[in-house]
């Protein structure tokens, strides 16, 4: 009986196959035509539209401007610059305030308590100087820019601007052999590359989706701006007259962000001519009507929800990283810490790329989260210089209150304008953080492409910094 059923069911399937050969490829078309015919009939029955003329002219006018030759690209550039500028300027004060509370007040206070209840030195070192400070730094550096950037960005998103960016950028992406919606996923990447990689699902061609995933890393994410902002302020802002410093450093950060966009186009172009050969296929994007954003609700949701979630992730990664930093600089062999061993060994290598051993070690420690690059660099620099009078001692991540003090440390560590520029470049062009790598694996289910996405940017970063460094020295 069961067997008869089985063969009967198989016969349905083979019947279907035969029918498919018969009806050919027109089947889907006829079906869709029928559905739309039904749909129009139903709609005609219940929908009435009064006075036809007032056809949302506001949308049309705005669209004409936003996508015009005159204003299209400048508008995008200005919007981007304003968002970054507001973020940079606006987050200075709150950052300093948070740092002074979390680091200058609470940290010594915790140490005192630890001493009072006579905790062993290594435990208080590990937990308070390592884990707590790691977390405190991340909170004070990341919270303010995120609390400003996310709401601003969400407002743009709610207004309906992003699809227009995608519309404007499509011709560039098409020439690069990529998908126009890659502009959308890059925008998401400015917040966080993990979100950007997941957002690539809107791209339906697998080839173009892979390109979008691999190049998403060139969208400067949240965790990397603090680095950009600080270094730009010290080295770029410091290289121009005082009254230009603010504009110059904001300009430099926007420049790096734009370089990221250019690189993602270039890499897309390269990929679609080598390993991911093919022509740009299709692009179909619905441009929704503009909708006035609801400012208060947006502020509330982005603060409570988005910011909190991203921050939480950063904190989770900062804690173990703090521990590691404390360990590598406190475990010593013959009086020299592990950190120093590595730094001394890799220094010549780093110099080749206009960087130094400290930066290289910091990037290795910061693989889990890019946010902690700067504090790690500062701590390690102090360590190698033996400048124990500054900061809080070996293996302690700290924030120096004034940018000037930070600058002094860098300069004492032998940093030049070149080091600054190359650090900014390398911060843009290096491997994605571990969470992003994991997400890439989950989305592509392919070790090969995950490896490519992880290694391609580092290799490029080294090549670019190498040439910048050598040419700089030559001139």
């Amino acid at each position, binding site marked *: 009986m069961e067997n008869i*059923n*089985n063969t*009967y*069911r*198989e*016969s*349905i*399937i083979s*019947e*279907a196959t035969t*029918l*498919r050969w*018969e*009806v050919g490829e*027109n*089947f889907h078309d*006829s*079906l*869709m*035509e*029928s*559905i*739309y*015919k*039904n*749909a129009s009939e*139903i*709609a005609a*029955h*219940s*929908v*009435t*539209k*009064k*006075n036809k003329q*007032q056809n*949302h002219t506001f949308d049309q006018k705005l669209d004409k401007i936003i996508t015009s030759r005159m204003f299209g690209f400048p508008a995008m550039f200005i919007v981007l610059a304003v968002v970054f500028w507001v973020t940079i300027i606006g987050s200075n004060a709150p950052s300093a305030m948070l740092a002074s509370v979390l680091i200058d007040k609470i940290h010594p206070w915790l140490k005192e308590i630890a001493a009072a209840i006579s905790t062993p030195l290594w435990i208080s070192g590990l937990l308070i100087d390592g884990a707590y400070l790691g977390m405190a730094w991340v909170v004070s550096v990341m919270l303010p820019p995120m609390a400003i950037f996310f709401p601003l960005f*969400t407002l743009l*998103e*709610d*207004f*309906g601007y*992003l*699809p227009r960016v995608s519309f404007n950028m499509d011709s560039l992406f098409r020439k690069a052999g990529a998908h126009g*919606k890659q502009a*959308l996923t890059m925008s998401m990447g400015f917040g966080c590359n993990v979100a950007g990689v*997941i*957002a690539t*699902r*809107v791209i*339906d061609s*697998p080839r173009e989706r892979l390109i979008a995933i691999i190049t998403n890393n060139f969208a400067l994410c949240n965790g990397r701006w603090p680095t950009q902002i600080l270094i730009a302020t010290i080295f770029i802002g410091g290289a121009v007259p005082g009254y230009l410093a603010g504009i110059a450093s904001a300009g430099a950060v926007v420049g790096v962000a734009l370089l990221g966009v250019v690189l993602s186009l270039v890499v897309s172009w390269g990929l679609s001519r080598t390993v991911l050969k093919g022509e740009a296929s299709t692009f179909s*994007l*619905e441009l*929704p*009507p*503009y909708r006035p954003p609801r400012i208060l609700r947006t502020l509330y*949701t982005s603060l*409570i*929800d988005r910011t909190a979630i991203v921050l939480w992730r950063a904190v989770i990664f900062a804690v173990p990283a703090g521990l590691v930093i404390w360990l590598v600089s406190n475990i010593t062999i013959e009086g020299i810490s592990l950190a120093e061993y590595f730094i001394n060994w890799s220094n010549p290598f780093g110099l080749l790329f206009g960087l130094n051993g400290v930066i290289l070690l910091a990037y290795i420690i910061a693989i889990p989260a890019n946010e902690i690059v700067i504090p790690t660099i500062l701590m390690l620099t102090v360590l190698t210089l033996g400048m124990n009078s500054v900061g809080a001692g070996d293996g302690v991540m700290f924030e120096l209150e004034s940018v000037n003090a930070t600058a002094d440390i860098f300069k004492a560590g032998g940093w030049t304008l070149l080091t600054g520029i190359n650090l900014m470049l390398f911060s843009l062009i290096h491997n994605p953080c571990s969470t992003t790598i994991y997400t890439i694996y989950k989305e592509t289910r392919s070790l090969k492409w995950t490896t490519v996405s992880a290694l391609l940017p580092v290799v490029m970063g080294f090549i670019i910094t190498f040439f910048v460094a050598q040419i700089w020295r030559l001139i």
Partner: protein
Amino acid sequence: MSNSLIHNCETCPAHNVGNLTKLGINMDNFDFVVALAGNPNTGKSTVFNALTGLKQHTGNWPGKTVTRAEGGFLYNNKKFKLVDLPGTYSLLSTSTDEEVARNFVLFGQPDVTVIVVDSSRLERNLNLVLQVLEITNRAVLCLNLIDEAKRHSIIIDERKLSKDLGIPVVPTSARYDEGINELLKMIYEVATGAFVCKPYKIKTESKQVKNAVEKLNGKLLQAFPKLPNVNWVALRLLEGDQEIINAIRSGDLGSLEIKNFIPLLEEQT
């Protein structure tokens, strides 16, 4: 089918806001699963947030939601699990970005499917609505963005629409929390079987399609006599859908679909 199609009585006790408790991510021991389907950018996530009190990301561009999100709410002492899905233009396509939504509507066996449409673009949205109605007997149409439709002086007669489609139709403006109570009420009624849907079925004029579907229908009904949405299964077979082929091969098709389609009312009697 003695129910009147739409209850517009705002003062009845059943319409009290007090009946809704937003449960956030708490959705243990739910009584019903409700899916939110619809074209991209029609406000599904906004409806989701209004019902569950969660903060699912919304954004004014198609493709904002790419993964499925779940939340819960309590209404008239029944616990509902609500599933927000990525937007999809069609259930007949094979594109990967629409896979999550397609699979949930087809195989997730939701008790009620709420189809969220953009009221000012009803005709185009009906494409998906008609497809969903081929699959399920329990759906509610949510005429969202009704404020925008009004602004463009588009007027929709929801009673006519409801009669034509055979399912409840609720105009809402999810962003401003309007119409949510009415929506809840209809979800509740459809879930409990108080409202029995008589969904519209797609009519085709193409002889080619008709013949092929009829041939398969006959065979399918012989193997799975109780299959309620046999038309859809035939259509999917003609499109070469592997999931359906597998379900036929293993014989699961019968049990899977029938469970989904016995209205609760019949179960209770």
